[in-house]
């Protein structure tokens, strides 16, 4: 697929980085040569230096035969204008814009075909906020992503030592859950994926990925990890866009929230914007005295959300040492994330992976409704719709055991109308089923996409 990316900032860079290896021809446009040089030297893509809202620059970047245009420059206005140009002048089939302001999304006519012609809006701030929110709602999980409009969840859970499931095989897991629709699709031990067969024994410390009917999710996780005390008190460091959104959302859910922000003017702004039950504190997240004075040891969750990776890591380590029960840090750089996850920092959240999940479904071929990155971006789960019939499709009318999936990949769940089915080897897939597939390494994704593409005779 030919993809044009506008903006080599943090979002643009991570989008390019994530898409570059997947048989995509990528061109990145930016006005700053510095970010472009970084990309050019590390990845097999083309960079164009210039203003992406100018027709000549877009032309030089080859927009005429682009399949997908992703505008993720820093300014909303630039992104919207670029999308409009892409549609009006060059008729690019799909256009995605990163939009920070929530106001555009509220007025659909602005983004529609008579407005700025944006097919889909991505908002990294919103994705990360939702993601963090789900982590607080399911305090036992390392990652929660939803499929089939929230009816199916994919959970990543670390198995605690006292968990009833520890030292049991996957077989006995099924027996222990007669009334829960859940299935383990992946077991990660010491950072490496274990080939999970029915006889695999789960050890304490393993990370387990399971697909589960959302209604049963809470019960399922409890099985894997000793239930944690419910979360009430939350402290957030960093009152940027994400911090503010998250604080507001949590306050609405009646959590007790404290928000630390370094900049005094910003603090004032935050205190006018946020509901009264959010306590805005002026200071630094790495200030030991401040944390102690604000009773860090009573906090159920600490979340570091500044734009500085190192600051987030240090303040989270400090919070953990001072007694916060669970610490979550926003970490942009993939290398840092892998380093910190599972150390003293309980969960490392990568904003780029959260954004990618939003983008992926537009990049995937076949009728992919939702796609999510799992395990720090290594694995992926997609929800694809099976179309066609036994002749034209490689999945419809076949039993699960007959579908040729790549090694390690598995079909986790089927959604047929209102029904959620946890398939076994003999379940037959019907047309228009939503199939949720787990793929352990994203390089194998291409083969899964092919499975769900209908051969030409269908049309």
């Amino acid at each position: 697929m030919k993809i044009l990316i506008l903006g080599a900032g943090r979002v643009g860079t991570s989008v390019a980085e994530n898409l570059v290896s997947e048989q995509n021809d990528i061109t990145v446009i930016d006005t700053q040569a510095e970010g472009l040089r970084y990309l050019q030297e590390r990845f097999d893509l083309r960079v164009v230096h210039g203003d992406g809202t100018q027709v000549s620059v877009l032309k030089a970047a080859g927009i005429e035969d682009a399949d997908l245009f992703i505008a993720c420059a820093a300014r909303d206005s630039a992104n919207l204008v670029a999308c409009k140009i892409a549609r009006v002048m060059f008729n690019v089939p799909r256009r995605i814009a990163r939009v920070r302001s929530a106001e555009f999304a509220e007025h659909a006519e602005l983004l529609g075909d008579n407005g700025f012609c944006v097919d889909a809006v991505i908002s990294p701030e919103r994705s990360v906020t939702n993601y963090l929110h789900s982590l607080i709602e399911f305090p036992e999980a390392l990652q929660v992503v939803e499929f089939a409009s929230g009816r199916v969840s994919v959970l990543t859970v670390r198995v605690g030592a006292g968990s009833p499931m520890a030292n049991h095989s996957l077989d006995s897991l099924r027996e222990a859950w007669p009334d829960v629709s859940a299935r383990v699709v992946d077991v990660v031990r010491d950072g490496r994926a274990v080939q999970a067969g029915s006889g695999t024994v789960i050890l304490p410390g393993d990370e387990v990925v399971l697909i589960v009917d959302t209604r049963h999710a809470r019960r399922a996780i409890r099985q894997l990890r000793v239930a944690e005390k419910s979360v009430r008190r939350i402290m957030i460091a960093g009152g940027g866009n994400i911090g503010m959104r998250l604080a507001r959302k949590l306050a609405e859910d009646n959590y007790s929230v404290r928000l630390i922000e370094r900049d005094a003017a910003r603090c004032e702004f935050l205190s006018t914007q946020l509901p009264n039950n959010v306590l805005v504190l002026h200071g630094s997240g790495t200030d030991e005295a401040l944390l102690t004075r604000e009773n860090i040891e009573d906090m159920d969750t600490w979340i570091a959300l500044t734009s500085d990776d190192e600051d987030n890591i240090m303040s989270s380590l400090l919070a953990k040492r001072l007694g916060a029960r669970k610490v979550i840090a926003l970490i942009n750089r993939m290398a840092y994330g892998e380093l910190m996850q599972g150390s003293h920092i309980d969960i490392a959240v990568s904003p780029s992976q959260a954004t990618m999940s939003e983008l992926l479904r537009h990049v995937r071929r076949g009728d992919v409704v939702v796609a999510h990155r799992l395990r720090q971006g290594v694995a992926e789960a997609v929800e694809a719709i099976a179309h066609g019939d036994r002749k034209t499709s490689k999945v419809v009318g076949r039993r699960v055991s007959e579908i040729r999936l790549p090694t390690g990949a598995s079909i986790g769940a089927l959604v047929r109308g209102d029904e959620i089915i946890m398939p076994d080897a003999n379940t037959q897939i019907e047309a228009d089923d939503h199939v949720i597939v787990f793929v352990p390494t994203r390089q194998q994704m291409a083969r899964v996409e092919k499975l769900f593409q209908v051969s030409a005779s269908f049309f």
Partner: protein
Amino acid sequence: MKRLLAIANVVGLTMMLFASTMALPMIMALVYADGAEDAFVDGFLIALGIGAFLWIATRRFRAELRPRDGFPLVTLVWLGLPLLASIPLLIYFDRAGIPLSFTDAYFESMSGLTTTGATILTGLDTLPMSINLWRATLVWVGGMGILVLAVAILPLLGVGGHQVFRAETPGPMKDDRLTPRIASTAKALYAVYVGLSLLCFLAYRVAGLSWFEAWCHMATTMGLGGFSTKDEGFAYFDSLQVEIVAMVFMVIAGINFATHFTAWRYRSPMAYLRCPEAVPYLVVLAVTGLLVSLGLYLSGVYPQALTALRFGVFTTISVATTTGYANTDYTLWPLGIPLFLLVLSGFATSAGSTGGGIKMIRVVLLIKQVRAELVTMLHPHAVSPVRINGRVVDPRVLSSVAAFMLVYGASILILTAIMLGTGLPPEEAFSAVLATINNTGPALGRFGPMGSFSALTDFQAWVCIFAMLIGRLEFFTVLILLTPTFWRR
């Protein structure tokens, strides 16, 4: 050490790819039984074997190439391939009873691959067809670059391919890609190269050469090499049509192939006008051609104006594009003319073409920089950045161009001094260095178009080999390996 082994793995693969180009002359030798069958069958197997051995032995160390790995890789490949290329030459001459020294065989191969076209062999007309075909093939492959070919058709290079591509393609600004993927950029360049080569082949045939001669001359024209199948070169054919075909395709091959590609993609000659090099290149060729013809006419070398024009323009294009074909022995002309043309050969061709020298774009940039410098002297507050097509050129590019010129000049001086030290007369020493460092080919004196480089001693030959190598790889790729910083961990 591990890095070197990882590099050796790619070198092995490239060698296998290169060895497979030996199949063409091998088949020719077998079909026509021209006396070089053994040489090519054995040479092919040995070359393939060396490549395969290197590839398999270092398989365990295969790794993604890092940016700096491009330099040793390219240098190793360019040192290793002439080695493989000289195997069939060595075997053939050994069995024919007129043994060729290793130095001579390596010189000939390096001269072919770097598209220099300086030959050390005599009696080309009596050589088996397959040997001449092999010499021509070397030029053709070396013209666009064997590693560019490897990047195009071997998927393994990935990101590293970008580094390799940069280290092998000539020119100061290599970050403008034709397509997002480096592999498809390399493919596009080769597609243009192959397409133009076929046109050239047919044109030669129509102009009256035999199929075989047309093929060989196509390869050395498009590669801007200048190897001929005849000792006398184009003087042997003495045909105006053939010379016109040669001139047209030499001019075409001296233009950036990326420009050809753009022109073809948009079906518009505007690309040539927008290219910062094509116009100055054509103007320089036209003006020099006319001046040289006028000089020849006035000095009485050719009393007829049209004859002067024919020889003047052909020689100008041939030497300035670093090809080195000759339709007459131009060393007999007043010394100033061929010497001037040799110097010009260092400047005329474009970056991204198959020609040698320091490339037109660098001269354009340098002139613009000087102009900007003068403006700032007059108006100290003036902001006058150097621009190409309305875009500001990165100052880092400018300083690298200045450094390049310095290294180019210094290399010529040092190598000439060395050649003088070995006892060559000044005219021959200077012209031999110029002709090899610019990858032009024929020099003056005994090394002229009708002579050969066989008069060189072994040491002098190695100096010339070194000059050809650094000229083709544009100095820095090779010189960077000689710095201690590069090897420090």
